């Protein structure tokens, strides 16, 4: 290493120093960029953009089908779309959540953040918001494409816009819940690969479990339990809520809520999920993340 320093002298910084608001915003932007692989090596871009492509392709096909067949409504509703494509959405979460937090935990980067003018909760808020916004984006973009395709096929504008807005609302609720869950799991291990596997496995297992429970319950004529078991799986939860709140067809009509209290249980499960996972995260960062 050369020790020749062409020294123009150390310059003082007398310029502006922004506060926490700027820091949180910068970290949030950094999180979103990182999740989509921007400013990272090419191989980091492959997975997120492949999944975005997988999510965005069906609306184009659906649009063509509607155009060719002259159907009066798309074969799939906006909220059903979320359920139908739950696997790529889960994969995207599994890839993104560990990226957002595990790297900093594993390599000790937290000590560089914590020695700066921000609070532990600021860091967490920025990472969480960055992940939630990214999750929302990958759901909102294909739904928007679906809406554009429907309008091009000259389907009724009002109906399509209302359906699309409802789809965005449910996408937001799903993004908020999934992000809290994903981060809570990812912070349990500093190993990124373990985090990825854990998130995808847990989501698949709870989905299988909730369907098994619903199936058993309906065989035993416990239809209430069959509906409420949907609260275990984030995608079924949102699907059920959509059908009750927005009055749209559920992806799984068989187990859609039929009574207000059932929808209430689903809503409560969403709230408990967000607060519970969020609380876990806060506790983890307050107590056990070392400087």
């Amino acid at each position, binding site marked *: 290493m050369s020790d020749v320093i062409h020294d123009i002298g150390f310059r003082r910084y007398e310029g502006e120093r922004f506060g926490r608001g700027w820091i949180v915003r910068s970290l949030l932007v950094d999180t979103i960029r990182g999740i989509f692989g921007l400013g990272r090596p090419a191989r980091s871009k492959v997975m997120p953009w492949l999944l975005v492509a997988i999510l965005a392709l069906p609306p184009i096909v659906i649009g063509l089908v509607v155009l060719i067949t002259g159907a009066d409504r798309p074969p799939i509703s906006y909220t059903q779309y979320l359920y139908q494509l739950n696997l790529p959405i889960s994969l995207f979460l599994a890839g993104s959540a560990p990226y957002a937090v595990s790297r900093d935990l594993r390599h000790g980067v937290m000590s*560089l953040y914590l*020695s700066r003018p921000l609070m532990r909760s600021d860091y967490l808020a920025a990472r969480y918001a960055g992940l939630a916004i990214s999750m929302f984006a990958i759901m909102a973009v294909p739904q928007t494409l679906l809406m554009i395709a429907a309008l091009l096929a000259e389907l009724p504008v009002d109906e399509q816009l209302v359906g699309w807005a409802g789809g965005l609302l449910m996408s937001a609720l799903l993004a908020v819940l999934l992000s809290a869950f994903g981060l809570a799991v990812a912070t349990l291990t500093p190993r990124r690969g373990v985090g990825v596997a854990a998130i995808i496995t847990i989501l698949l297992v709870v989905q299988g479990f909730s369907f098994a429970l619903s199936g058993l319950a309906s065989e035993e004529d416990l239809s209430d339990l069959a509906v409420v078991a949907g609260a275990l799986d984030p995608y079924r939860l949102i699907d059920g809520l959509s059908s009750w709140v927005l009055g749209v067809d559920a992806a799984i009509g068989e187990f859609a809520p039929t009574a207000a209290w059932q929808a209430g249980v689903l809503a409560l499960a969403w709230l408990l999920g967000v607060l519970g996972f969020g609380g876990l995260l806060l506790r983890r960062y307050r107590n056990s993340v070392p400087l």
Partner: protein
Amino acid sequence: MPADPVDHAATPNPPTRRSFGAAITTRHLTKQFGPVTALQDLSVEMPTGVVGLVGANGAGKSTLIKILLGLLPPTGGDAQILGRDARTDGLAIRQVVGYMPESDCLPPDVSATELVVHLARMSGLPSAAARERAADTLRHVGLYEERYRPIGGYSTGMKQRVKLAQALVHDPQLVLLDEPTNGLDPAGRDEMLDLIRRVHVDFGISVLVTSHLLGELERIADHVVVIEAGVLQRSTSTAEATALSGVLLVEVTDRADEVVARLRALGAAVETDGGPTFSVAADARVLDAVTAATAELGVGLVRMQRRRHHLTELFGGTR
């Protein structure tokens, strides 16, 4: 051939940007982790300039730094850093203080430039200023073309420089450097110590640097604080501690015994083991007598040098 007769006078401290009197003051600072006492009733004042904090591993150095950054509440007592209260003003402190952790803290998959720009923003700098200062700071710590490569491929010395750069990038008034020479080979250690000295002398930034080796801090620190098991052992200005001892070391080419005899005849207190080198309690009269005696006897004066105390002599037990 006469050698440099006396040591160079110590370079005077350059003015720091703002004078706070003491950079860091603690009063009866105590920190307990359950039954373990990490710091016990620590009352110490550290001036601006380069302050060395010496103690064995586990002596409480890192605990003190975390308290000073406002990240760890003390069990008792209080700490002021740059005039701010560490208990309540953590955010304000961390805006004007830089910190270089002892542990590994660098993600391997980004370049030094990307990391330091990002961390400059995390210190509140606008993006354009962050980019400019990151480039400047990395150059100042001696990272050039390699700063565009991922950190994963860096040597320990380069990683330590990146860690130092991120602590300096927002132009703090004070940096806290936790064991910056850890893991470096002797040459790397020397380079790092020179760099730390420059942080104060050239950049005008006060430094608190920890080490478990007193010897290396002695070289660069203006003030040394020694703690052991969380208890203050000593807090001394190095200028004071290594003051000229008033003993002159003289070495002649030949006929040392005759020179000694002449000096003794003049009443000077000489200590000699009979070799060509002897020491003599010095005053202005003795200095002249030495030169006169060597000139009259026609012997060469190899060395005439004032002896300094070494910190290690004072703190014999702490190494």
